[in-house]
């Protein structure tokens, strides 16, 4: 017995986990009956279908031959997610200008070809652009600076 289609195997496991997770979480709500369905009914049904499909996909991976899981590069995804989270934090406390600066400066590190001066210039351009377009032109309610 060996896994012949690793991609399917892991995808199946993830589906089983998500499906059963939703079923478990749904149990805190009222199930109701077919006539008067409670809030737990539909999620339970769909969750069960998802888990069942996941099981089939995972089991099938022992029979059908498929591709290996491609390499996960921690760099780009990690840096990007970090940059977006930092943008959120900065926008809340420091305003748009600082937030865009952080997003560009940190986010740019996701590429291997990043150059310092260029990135600084890009940050300046993006700040000017987003302030001019989003705040002044479109009048969107974005805080520019930290609340004093």
């Amino acid at each position, binding site marked *: 017995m060996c896994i012949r289609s690793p991609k*399917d195997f892991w*995808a199946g496991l993830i589906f089983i986990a998500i499906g059963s997770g939703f079923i478990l979480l749904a149990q805190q709500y009222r199930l109701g009956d077919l*006539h008067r369905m409670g809030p737990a009914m539909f999620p339970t049904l769909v969750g069960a279908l*998802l888990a069942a499909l996941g099981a*089939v996909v995972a089991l099938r991976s022992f029979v059908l031959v498929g591709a290996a899981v491609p390499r*996960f590069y921690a760099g780009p*995804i990690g840096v990007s997610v970090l940059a*977006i989270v930092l943008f959120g934090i900065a926008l809340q406390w420091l305003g748009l200008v600082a937030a865009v600066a952080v997003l560009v400066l940190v986010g*740019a590190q*996701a590429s291997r070809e990043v150059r310092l001066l260029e990135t600084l210039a890009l940050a300046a351009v993006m700040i000017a652009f987003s302030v001019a377009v989003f705040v002044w032109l479109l009048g969107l309610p974005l805080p520019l600076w930290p609340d004093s």
Partner: protein
Amino acid sequence: METLSNLAFGLGIALSWQNILYCFIGCFLGTLVGVLPGIGPVATVAMLLPFTFGLEPAPALIMLAGIYYGAQYGGSTTAILVNIPGESSSVVTTLDGHQMARRGRAGPALGIAAIGSFIAGCIATLVVAFFAPPLAEIALKFGPADYFSLMVFGLVAAVVLARGSLLKAIAMVCFGILLGLIGTDVNSGVIRFAFGWPELTDGIGFVALAMAFFGITDVIFNLEHKEKQEVFTSRIGSVLPTAEDLRACAGSIARGTTLGAILGILPGGGALLASFAAYMVEKKVARPPRMFGQGDIRGVAAPESANNAGAQTSFIPMLTLGIPSNPTMALMIGALMIQGIAPGPQVMTERPELFWGLIASMWIGNLMLLVLNLPLVGLWVKLLAVPYRLLFPAIFVFCCIGVYTVDNKIFDIYEIAALSAVGYVLLKLDCEPAPMVLGFILGPMMEENLRRTMMISFGDPSVFFTRPISAAFLIAAVLLLLVIALPSLRAKREEAMQE
């Protein structure tokens, strides 16, 4: 001719200077962003959504439609010049389009794409104008059971037409439905799956989901696979095709338009399927079968006409049933909801100015694309020369600001970060995001209609099979699944997806 007078009414609305301006801005911005490699129409529409928030519903929708066509066309430009399809529906354009560019015929390739798109757009606009109203009439008679079955059919069709494994696609639909259920349950007021976070009371933001799965994860995949790109920016030459080109393409444009218009109406069809099908038909039908794959201009004209016609007619299910046939239409529905309009058959009667204004603006949008793209090709080409390392942080900025401005919630930004991570893992495992996004939009509607049906029928599920419309949809869904499960057809489908 009621349709014609309605169209005239629509033209009157679309031709107000203000709406023309918004249509123009939409087309311009859409092309501008769509040209950037690796950004498809979904991400483009999502990113540019904030530009429409301050507008009235009609101009907002007109502008969004402009953005959509622009993005579609921009993707073709990238496909021809860089050999990177900006989106999946221009994949086939790269085959002959890029070959033409290599032979120094980039100009005519771009030109015929614009002309083909324009002709297809004009015809498809008429199709929408004539077919949408009767469909909406029928849809008004639908009961909750019929709606539920229709959605099941729509999701099944979307899954069948998606790339990759059928089972995984259905699983992704289920995952999307579950994600869509997060938040307040309309019937009981219970807040579901929110982990006690008050920010999740309204559910996961659709824009965050679309941007994470179609914008951010795409950027990350591009960063991982950095390949040297061949950009043909130096010699575009005249964009006007020769008379001989035009003669050769006339049939291709007609065939592409017909196929595209039909396939666009199907749920899950839209531009992508249309362009693939058109190219394959063209390869079989065109005489003489000269040199497809080596820069045959008909190999550009047919799929480009088809994808534009398909993009247009995919508005039909959205406008008449309130059901999106692809992720871009799902975004349109999201945008309508932000404007406080519940999409569905009642839109046509309750908001005729919206309905007919949009249809008329489709035509104006197409004209604008022609006027905009032929002279401005040089500008788009310059954009392509901007290195990716400078582009992608800008994409991040647009996504983050865009998602925040939907609701002015900081939480949405964290959502996009989390969903990007989820999307990254799923994409690595070959799980397609498009079915999931449709499930996400349709999930709550399905639950609502299912509960209503069962309420009316006192818990008897047999209504789904005794109501004729509902039964027809369910049978069609089962047939589709059976057909695709047959081994011989399956091989054909895989072959088609390979090409």
